[in-house]
Every structure is written in structure tokens, then in C-alpha cells.
């Protein structure tokens, strides 16, 4: 068993040692349902797909994922366990990856628990299950990127509230940058290159692309590389702020 998986197991265990895990899953499913049925008009649309469910995911994650990520490192710092963890024979990257993996698997679990919706659309009609599967995958990848950002913000502060807020802000920027409102506002004066660059950094753009059922390499690579970069940044931040 590698160090990463030992760390990840411990972390996952601690999610379920407190009500945190159950509360998170419950809120995720309830909000997902509310968005799908009331705001998304699941029945009214009369279409057998999960577009109303997935299209709200970026907004759902914007508040729920930072709640998971904020404790990743802030708590270790606050309680002093970071001193224990980082004097054990493992590398910082082991610890960063282990913690991230646990959080990512956990959001994956929450996502998977929305399966009754999938069953419902399959009972009501004949949806394109390939598209739905791609949407699930895209949503999970996007959650990973949100988490990686949160991991880095959490490493920056011993205060979980600050970690939460900064994560929301940074994630908001990444989400918003593909919003038509923003791009239209820029459209008047900014050079096309800049607009494209900003749009290409957007979670929305890439997630929408994947959830149309086309798992494009570009979009997958976007989320994966964004995650890798933010995790590497986490390790650097920990190295720099170790003594505090």
C-alpha cells in the first residue's frame, strides 16, 4: 500500500467519523433535486435527459466543494497535526495527493448517490446514457479542479472560514469567466485573443462541452492539468508556510 493510499484512507475515515459526510451528501442530493425539478423544470421540458441536473453543478459545487476543501490543510495547521504528519517518513506530495484523493473520492460518492435520477429518466423515457455517463465524468473532473483550488487556499490559512471564502472567490472567477454575460461585456473592447483565453479557462465552457456527450481530450486535459497545477501549488505553499 502506498503512502498516498494510507493517507487517503485515514482522511476518508475522518469524513465519516463526524456528521460532515452525511450532511454534505444530503445537501448535495437535496439541492441537486431542487435544481433539477423546480428550477430546471425536469418534467415540464418533456425530454428524457439529465441536462437540468448537470447544468447546475458548477453553481452547486461553488459552495459545496469549498466546504469540503476548507478543512484539508487549515485544520491540520490549527490543531498542530501538520507537525506530526510532515515529520513522518512521507513526502509533501504524498500528503497533498492523499488528502485530495480522499476528498475527490468523497465527492464522487456524493455524485454517484444521485443514481435514482438516472433510473428515473430511464424509466420515463429512453435517454442517451452515453451522454449521461459523460456528464457524470465531466462533473467529477470539474469537482476535482474545484477541490484542488480549495486545497491550495486551505494550505494558505489556518482559518477555515478564510479558506472557504477565498476558495469560493477563486472558483467563482474560474466559473464565471465563460459566462456569456462576462464575455459579452468584454466583447466590446478586449482583443479576441484575450476573450478566447479567458473563455478557455472557464469551467462552464469545458463542462458544457463534456456534458454534451463528447468527451474531448481538450476538455478532459483542461480539468486534469488545472487540478495538477493547483495541487503542485498546494505543495509549494505548504513548503513555504511550514513554520507558521
Amino acid at each position, binding site marked *: 500500500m502506498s503512502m498516498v493510499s494510507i493517507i487517503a484512507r*485515514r482522511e476518508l475515515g*475522518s469524513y465519516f*467519523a463526524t456528521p460532515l459526510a452525511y450532511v454534505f451528501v444530503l445537501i448535495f442530493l437535496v439541492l441537486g433535486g431542487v435544481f433539477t425539478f423546480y428550477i430546471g423544470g425536469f418534467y415540464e421540458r418533456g425530454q428524457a435527459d439529465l441536462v437540468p441536473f448537470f447544468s447546475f453543478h458548477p453553481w452547486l459545487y461553488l459552495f459545496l466543494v469549498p466546504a469540503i476543501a476548507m478543512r484539508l490543510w487549515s485544520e491540520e495547521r490549527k490543531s498542530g497535526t501538520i507537525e506530526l504528519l510532515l515529520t513522518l*517518513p512521507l513526502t509533501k506530495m504524498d500528503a497533498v495527493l492523499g488528502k485530495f484523493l480522499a476528498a475527490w473520492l468523497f465527492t464522487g460518492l456524493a455524485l454517484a448517490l444521485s443514481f435514482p435520477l438516472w433510473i428515473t429518466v430511464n424509466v420515463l423515457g429512453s435517454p442517451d446514457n452515453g451522454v449521461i455517463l459523460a456528464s457524470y465524468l465531466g462533473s467529477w473532473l470539474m469537482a476535482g479542479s474545484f477541490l484542488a483550488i480549495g486545497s491550495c487556499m486551505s494550505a494558505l490559512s489556518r482559518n477555515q472560514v478564510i479558506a472557504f471564502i477565498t476558495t469560493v472567490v477563486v472558483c467563482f472567477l474560474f466559473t464565471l469567466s465563460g459566462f456569456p454575460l462576462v464575455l459579452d461585456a468584454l466583447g466590446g473592447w478586449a482583443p479576441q485573443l484575450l476573450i478566447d483565453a479567458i473563455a478557455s479557462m472557464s469551467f462552464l465552457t469545458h463542462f458544457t462541452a463534456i456534458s454534451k456527450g463528447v468527451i474531448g481530450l481538450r476538455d478532459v486535459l483542461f480539468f486534469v492539468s488545472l487540478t495538477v497545477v493547483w495541487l503542485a501549488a498546494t505543495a509549494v505553499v505548504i513548503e513555504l508556510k511550514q*513554520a507558521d
Partner: protein
Amino acid sequence: MIEVSHLSRRFGSFVAVDDLSFTVRPGEVLGFLGPNGAGKSTTMKMIAGFIAPSAGSVRIFGRDVQQQTQDARRLIGYLPEGAPSYEDMRVMEFLRFIGKVRSLRGADLDARLDSVVERMDLGGVLQQRIETLSKGFKRRVGLAQAILHDPQVLILDEPTDGLDPNQKHQVRELIRGLSDEKIVVVSTHILEEVHAVCNRAIIVAHGRVVADGTPAELESRSPTHRAVHLHLAEAYAGAVAAIAALAGVREVRADADGKRLLVLPHPEASPLAALARLVHDRGWVADELHVERGKLDEVFRNITREAA
């Protein structure tokens, strides 16, 4: 062997550890003493590889803590100040986690777990969440975690803080019971502890070493070293003057009632024999007569005040 050479650590412009050098050899139990804020914990954090030095280096059996970090860490068991642990875990679960990270597996791990649970007397709380334990038990869990892999080098930052007298005794026994090839560095504010377990003591102040020697050597620097306590049954007339006239006596201090006397010797002199003879010749009745070894806390106060 721990080789600390020219170790310094600054926090901004504040120098917490200032060009510290010392070597600890196998078999040595080093008491690391100093006033609050002297830089003890900061030094221990650097030895354990938690924070990087601003200058200088630490080697653990030849492995540089900054360069061969993992190799060095494997040799060390570390109890950080305050004994932090994952409070939402159960004791057994936590120790098992540490064991796995320490690459202990299967029967090996079980045997080590049994051994530390017995040594730290944790049998009754194995399934309890750490957050619900008393302060002393938390400390014991921290100690158990540090000795789990039977390390060559033990770095313990205030290990007996918050323990009851029985447990203090047990921890001292534990440290004394470690084999001769081990190295222990233990910081403490309890100076009797130094007597009880350490065969060497270093006093630091303002991040610098101000004294280094065996506990007995340090005690001999006390003004009351080899002083004699004499408790007479009554206040005999002329007793103080007669004692003060003895060879080797520098000063005699008497209590208000004149029965309790403290006889301070000149350096290197030992007035006990002459004093005993005098008491005998005069036919005084003495309730108590004993030689002071010197007080470590006096030495501690003198040395660290000088350094201020």
C-alpha cells in the same frame, strides 16, 4: 548520533535559534532546558525535519535532515510540543495509521502495537475517540506514536507535561529503559526530571547554549553545592560563631530561632567532617545533618539570568 552544527533559525528579524552546535551520541539522554521562548521547540522542530533551518545543518547518524529527509525521519520518533494527534480518530485506529506510515505490517505491526499499548497503559481507551481523552492520556497517545517503530532517536518536547505522578514516573522509566544504543533528547521544565532520566543537560537561552554538562556538573555550579544543612535540637549559644570559624566555611546562615543552620563552604572545600566533629565535641544534639548537592533550578536561574 545527532550532529547539530551552526544551526540558526530566524522568524523575520527575530533570531529564535542562534548558531547552535552540539553532538549527541548513542546512550545519551539529553535534557534540553531553557526558559520559555529560549528556542527549544524550534530546535527540536529542525531536528525532526519539520521546519528548515535558516543556516546550519542537522545530521542523524550521518543523514542530513534537509538532504536525506526520508532516511533521517525513519530513524526518529518525535513527540511535538502539545502532543497533537488526529482527535476524531480512535486511539487504536490512530496508532495503526502511524504504524502503516512507518511501514510496519501484519504481525510486526500487531506486536509493536501491543507493546506500546502496554507500555503507555492505553489498554482501557483503545476504542475511545482521542478528543474525549484527558490531557494526560492524549500525551500518552502522543508518546505511544513516537515510540511505535522503536526508533533509534527519540525527540520528546515536554513529554511529561500534564501527566499524573504515576505516569510521570512511568515515562521516566520508559526513557531509562531504552537500550544503550538509543539517543533521547527531551525538553522539560521539571528539573527533577533531569536528575531522574538524563545523563547530560544543555541549557539554552536566547537560542544559544549557555551550559552543557552532566546534571552533577551543572549542580556543582550552584552556590549551595556541598553546603551542609544542620538542624540542632536547640539554639546553642556561640554555635554560629564556632562553626563560622571552622576551616573551609565561607558563611553560616541561621534561621530566626537559631536552630536551622546552612553552612556554605569555600569553593572546593568540604566542611562536613569538621562540622560533625564539632557537633560531637560540644555535645550538641543534632536532628538533621546533610550535604546539599546543589540545586539545579538555582543554577538554571543564575545562568539564564546572566545570559539575559
